[in-house]
């Protein structure tokens, strides 16, 4: 009997969750990117509707005219079949009886005419609902009908004695189907839309500047400065810089908004210099999104760099100060070279984080004005999940994500190469 190695047991739970709730969604997203899925097509299943638009499309199509006529022809017929359905319904017995006595054989061309005829009965149907039941039972048309299954539609065709060839039938199902279909249009749209390139450039600028100025730059400065401070002081400043990270994003952005608004602190201070109060966030949208993201993003680097600096053997620093190195030289010659791996790690990790993050931008400028600060992830979010007028384009949103993922993968692979990834992974010496 072969024992299942412990490794698999250890990996299994994490693997199952990651595969099921991370990898599988990734694959599905990729699949969706080749569909026209949106909230107006629905996610599941098919739905065939002989709507006004569909019929207009059929009219213009190559569909056999006779079939087309039969499809749009609408009539309400009291034949044995419709009477049978009526007799099985909850409609009052006396109404049923009267219908069976008086109406068989009659045909009406509109629902309105049918209802008028029903209203003339002595025992007329009590409710609109009853009339509708009769209408459903007697209608002999496809015009306005809906089907969930293709088989139902075939049955309806047989009932109406419409004979359609496979080709016509395929055409009809295609035109009437309101659900999503496979398409590469999303990708074409991404590449042909002139805004894509702008948003792409925005994303690059946003990631580079935020990363350089704050997530690495500012983080490094804080880590270095606090490194040379007393314990109490350094604790205070590090804690201060962590506060934005633990502040709820809604609140955090609101605080910035207060600061930068017409009536905010900046306008107040600038008032002393004779500058009229203004909406500074609108004035400098780029500064806004970089600063807002940066003050949150710096904390991660700060923590990693600080702890990496603390891990530098003190003897190295003592040796350097014995050699008469000033603080700046110590930093340049000892600390920075010692923490180059953490720096690279933060740079790579945060590149990916920034690429996929959009929450603070959404809450502050929401990509505006005029998509000036719209980044790719936000664009995907706007497209797939947040559209003021309702139609959420899941498929196109997925396409945008796939593009982002490709960029992310290129970035990660570059960084992994820089990391000499394989070197990090020695084989475990315990071999069983």
């Amino acid at each position, binding site marked *: 009997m072969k024992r299942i190695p412990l*490794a698999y047991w250890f990996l299994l739970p994490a693997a199952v969750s990651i595969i099921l709730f991370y990898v599988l969604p990734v694959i599905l997203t990729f699949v969706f990117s080749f569909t026209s899925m949106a909230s107006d097509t629905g996610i599941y299943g098919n739905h065939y509707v002989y709507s006004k638009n569909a019929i207009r499309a059929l009219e213009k199509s190559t569909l056999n005219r006779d079939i087309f006529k039969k499809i749009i022809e609408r009539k309400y017929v009291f034949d044995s079949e419709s009477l049978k359905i009526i007799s099985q319904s909850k409609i009052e017995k006396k109404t049923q009886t009267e219908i069976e006595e008086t109406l068989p054989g009659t045909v009406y061309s509109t629902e309105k005419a049918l209802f008028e005829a029903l209203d003339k009965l002595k025992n007329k149907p009590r409710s609109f609902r009853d009339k509708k039941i009769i209408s459903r039972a007697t209608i002999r048309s496809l015009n306005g009908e809906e089907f969930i299954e293709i088989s139902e539609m075939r049955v309806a065709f047989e009932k109406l004695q419409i004979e359609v060839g496979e080709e016509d039938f395929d055409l009809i199902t295609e035109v009437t189907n309101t659900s999503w279909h496979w398409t590469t249009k999303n990708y074409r749209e991404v590449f042909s839309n002139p805004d894509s390139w702008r948003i792409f450039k925005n994303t690059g600028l946003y990631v580079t500047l935020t990363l350089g100025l704050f997530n690495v730059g500012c983080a490094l400065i804080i880590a270095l400065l606090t490194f040379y401070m007393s314990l109490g002081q350094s604790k205070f400043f590090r804690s201060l810089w962590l506060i934005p990270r633990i502040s709820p994003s809604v609140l955090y952005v609101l605080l910035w908004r207060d600061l930068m608004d017409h009536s905010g602190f900046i306008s107040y201070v600038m008032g002393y210099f004779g500058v009229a109060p203004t909406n500074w966030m609108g004035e400098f949208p780029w500064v806004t999104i970089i600063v807002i993201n940066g003050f949150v993003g710096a904390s991660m680097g700060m923590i990693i760099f600080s702890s990496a600096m603390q891990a530098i053997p003190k003897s190295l620093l003592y040796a350097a100060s014995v050699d008469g190195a000033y603080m700046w030289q110590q930093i340049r010659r000892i600390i920075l070279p010692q923490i180059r791996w953490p720096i690279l790690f933060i740079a790579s990790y945060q590149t990916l984080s920034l*690429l996929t993050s959009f929450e603070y931008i959404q809450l502050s400028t929401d990509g505006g004005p005029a998509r000036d600060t719209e980044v790719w992830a936000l664009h995907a979010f706007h497209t797939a999940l947040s559209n003021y007028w309702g139609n959420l384009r899941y498929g196109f949103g997925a396409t945008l994500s796939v593009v982002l993922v490709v960029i992310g993968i290129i970035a990660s692979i570059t960084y992994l190469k820089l990391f000499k990834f394989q070197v990090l992974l020695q084989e475990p010496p315990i071999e069983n």
Partner: protein
Amino acid sequence: MEKHNSNRISTIILFVLSLPLFILYFFFFLDVFTVPSTDSIWPESFTLVHWRFLTETLSGKPSIWITTLNTLIFSGCVVAIVLVLSSTAGYALSRLKMPYRSQLLGTLLLLHSFPSVSLLIAIFIILQMIGLYDSLVGVIIIKASLELPFGIWIMKGFYDTVPWEIEMSGVQDGASRFTVWYKLILPQIYPGLAALSIFSFISSWGEYVLPFVLAPSAEQQTLSVYLAGLLSETTAVDYGLLKAVGLFYMLPVMIFYIFTHEKLMNIYGGGGGSKG
């Protein structure tokens, strides 16, 4: 002398750099306890009215306490799952012999480049299939799964620093690999577990999009959703209230941080896979 001077300079530089934060949070605390003035940035008077949400249920909102409990359950479960699964998987990837180990690790890192928000529709479909859409359990599982790659890498980094000899010695002493892991290795990486628990706690405590999209029922609300709901599209917003709720929301994380921040500074002990 020299040291004293440079210390003062760094304090000043850091102070200037941190100035926006001082201003932001100074006004934050001010606003939470005062009545704002309409024509000045300075408040009119002290008040506790913004804290009324603690004692009364706001209209159209569930009780703050139930919401807080929900959020605690949510974050607690996410942290627990992330800790358990990352510490086992991290160990497997760091220490156990298996095929495709490096590929697995590379894949984990790549997963980070997937914007979780754009996976929402797919996640929604999966949750719906297994019947966990619109339930806190579903969101917990999703959040934990999304946190896992990061957690596994962090834990792997910490495991990497434990001397192999401890492990070998345990095996020689007759312990199974599981016992070795549980009794000998796990205690060596408590700092890692602490750091990871802080990160995943902060992350899940602040999570907004997942509970909002995947568990929209009011009964399942977390504090982040509660807080965001205080904003309004067009009508005037009670900002004092919103900020008070925001402070209330931050308190548990602050407390958590006070108790664990020493550990946070040890994160590089594990290095998060970034050993040079």
